[in-house]
């Protein structure tokens, strides 16, 4: 027996180096999230930021419980990737918070998880324009034309770990790569889309140009980039990435083109403001645009799958339009005009069953049943102001 013990010690010291030898204590399982629970249904939450106080709160839409999770002084924008909120702050860095609810899509079914919402910490970068995640990477795009990649596994454990920063204007993780519009350092916009490895190394380029890219969306049918002449849809099959342009129906000026898409995650239809008085609707499956006259418009979002096109006009009325006919199917006054037309602008967030519209002047958030003539299902309230809102758990 003594021989055996000695031998084991010798074996460990001889073979331990460079090996994936387990540490002395029990390491937490890979990918394990402390306290995370799998749930039967979507764990919808809203990350709500108060511009005045900087308070960041998470509103659980199932329990209506509000959790204070941190402070982001001078917050003046928020982006979300379905789990994390990325708050642009006064020092022009980004403050990351974990909404604590997320969804894992397995194609034929999905899994829903819930954990404690929590504060994570800052990431350097000026003027966040977009944030998207896949299981390995969270990719942040900045207005100065840089892209920052965060290690998603480390983020899930509560740590900000930058694995790459490179000069690209609009970037989205997709199929184990990063799709990014090409921009020269210091320039905001480029002229095309490249396929990069997650560390930023170029892999391939999409031949179809995308002049002056701005705005991006991830759909089940591929990634959409907004271009001066239309939308570039990038898809992947058997390791090959392809680009296809969906041209605007006619000449569209710089001030009328889509630069920011609002949509239900998973939807194949996207919405974007078309200048000040109309909304674009892009059907990614049928590859066409349609333009909806709305009057002075503040925010727009698409439900897709036969659901309405949603638009908030400056008079505080939420409108529902049927995409194919352009007919207005419902209208509901929800916000005072001075709030709807003021700053910060309210936002429409859409999930599989409801849409949410915040009142930035109060702590109110309206929950809208878009399948039932824009019925106001609930009005939820957080302390302070609901200046900025993103949804998690979807």
């Amino acid at each position, binding site marked *: *027996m003594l*021989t*055996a013990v000695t*031998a*084991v010690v*010798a*074996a460990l010291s*001889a*073979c331990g180096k460079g090996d*994936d*030898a*387990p*540490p002395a204590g*029990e*390491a*937490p*399982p*890979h*990918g*394990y999230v402390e306290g995370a629970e*799998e*749930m*039967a*249904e*979507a*764990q*919808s939450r809203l990350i709500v930021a108060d511009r005045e106080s900087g308070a960041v709160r998470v509103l659980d*839409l*199932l329990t*209506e419980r509000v959790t204070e999770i941190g402070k982001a002084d001078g917050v003046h924008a928020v982006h979300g990737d379905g789990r994390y909120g990325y708050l642009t702050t006064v020092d022009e860095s980004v403050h990351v918070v974990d909404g604590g609810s997320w969804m*894992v899509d*397995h*194609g*034929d*079914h999905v*899994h829903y998880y819930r954990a404690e919402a929590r504060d994570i910490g800052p990431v350097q970068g000026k003027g966040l324009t977009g944030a998207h995640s896949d299981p390995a990477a969270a990719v942040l795009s900045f207005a100065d034309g840089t892209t920052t990649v965060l290690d998603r596994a480390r983020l899930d454990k509560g740590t900000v770990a930058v694995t790459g920063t490179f000069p690209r204007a609009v970037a989205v993780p997709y199929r184990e790569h990063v799709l990014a519009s090409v921009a020269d350092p210091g320039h905001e916009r480029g002229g095309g889309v490249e396929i990069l490895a997650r560390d930023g190394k170029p892999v391939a380029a999409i031949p179809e140009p995308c002049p002056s890219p701005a705005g991006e969306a991830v759909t089940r049918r591929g990634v959409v980039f907004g271009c001066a002449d239309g939308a570039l849809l990038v898809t992947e099959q058997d390791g090959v990435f392809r680009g296809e342009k969906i041209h605007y129906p006619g000449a569209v000026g710089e001030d009328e083109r889509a630069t920011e898409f609002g949509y239900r995650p998973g939807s194949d239809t996207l919405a974007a403001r078309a200048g000040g008085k109309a909304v674009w609707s892009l059907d990614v499956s049928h590859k066409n645009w349609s333009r909806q006259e709305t009057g002075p418009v503040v925010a727009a979002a698409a439900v897709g799958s036969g659901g309405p096109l949603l638009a908030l006009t400056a008079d505080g009325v939420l409108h529902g339009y049927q995409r194919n006919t352009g007919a207005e199917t419902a209208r509901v006054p929800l916000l005072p005009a001075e709030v709807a037309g003021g700053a910060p602008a309210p936002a429409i967030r859409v*999930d*599989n*069953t*409801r849409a949410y519209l915040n009142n930035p002047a109060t702590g109110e958030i309206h*929950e809208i*049943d878009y*399948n*039932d003539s824009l*019925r106001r*299902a*609930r009005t939820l309230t957080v302390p302070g102001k609901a200046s900025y809102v993103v949804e998690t758990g979807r």
Partner: protein
Amino acid sequence: MIRRAAKLFAFATAVLLAVGACSGAGHERSAIVVTTNILGDITRAVVGDQAEVTVLMKPNADPHSFGVSARQAADLERAGLVVYNGLGLEEGVLRHVRAAEGAGVPVLAVGDGVHPLRYTVDGAEGQPDPHFWTDPRRVRDAVDAISKHVVDHVDGVAPEVIRRNADRYRAELDGLDASMRERFGRIPPQRRKLVTNHHVFGYFAKRFGFEVIGAVIPSGTTLASPSASDLKSLADAVRAAGVPAIFADSSQPDRLARVLADQAGLRIAVIPLFSESLSEPGRGAGTYLEMMRANTEAIAGGLSAG
């Protein structure tokens, strides 16, 4: 006692060899590592006290996304046999199973031997359905494969004991299958329908003559302030099926039932089932057999009511 002494001797020799080789290939391979807790329970029934069985997936976990610790990964590479589903179920640990295979560990993909069904739903068409355990006869096939691999690959087990254990467990499975057929046979055929948001009952349905009707179960935010349109898909499915119960994972089953009654005029029971994981012991599905009996009672009871 003699066996134990021999084991110790073999261990000492093997470790000494390992010092020279650094590969670990020489030591005794007597441990069995199983990925999911359902397969783990079945494997334990076959192995009995003949070898140590380690299960990586905890009770109430999700087989698709559970992970392993560094220590468990190391155990995998030193195992005498790794048992896993293999039909695309254990995404989180598959690379560790592959690594173990690469290191020379025998691995058994149980799903390969159970004549898997193929999905027909959009998006997963043609992919094998990994949830074969909902059919006890396929679990019988699994027992055949597990016992054969244990006898062939795991050091220090008595083959006759493994075979005896496997025979006994197969008899239990036969009894389970017979009792399920008997129990479901009493449900009128037109009521053998599972309106459900579970996606694991394809094998079950084929074995016992059920129809699975996939349904969208209104979620928590919907139930907070529902309208008839929220319930339309589910209510239509229930009406068309003409069943008195639905089988759903819902965080608020009672509220869902009440809302269905209020908004759609449907009086039905909302009944939970065990699907992809055993429970903690004593919580209704501590073992595979317990899980199947619990589901059988829940389904038969639910569909016979009213």
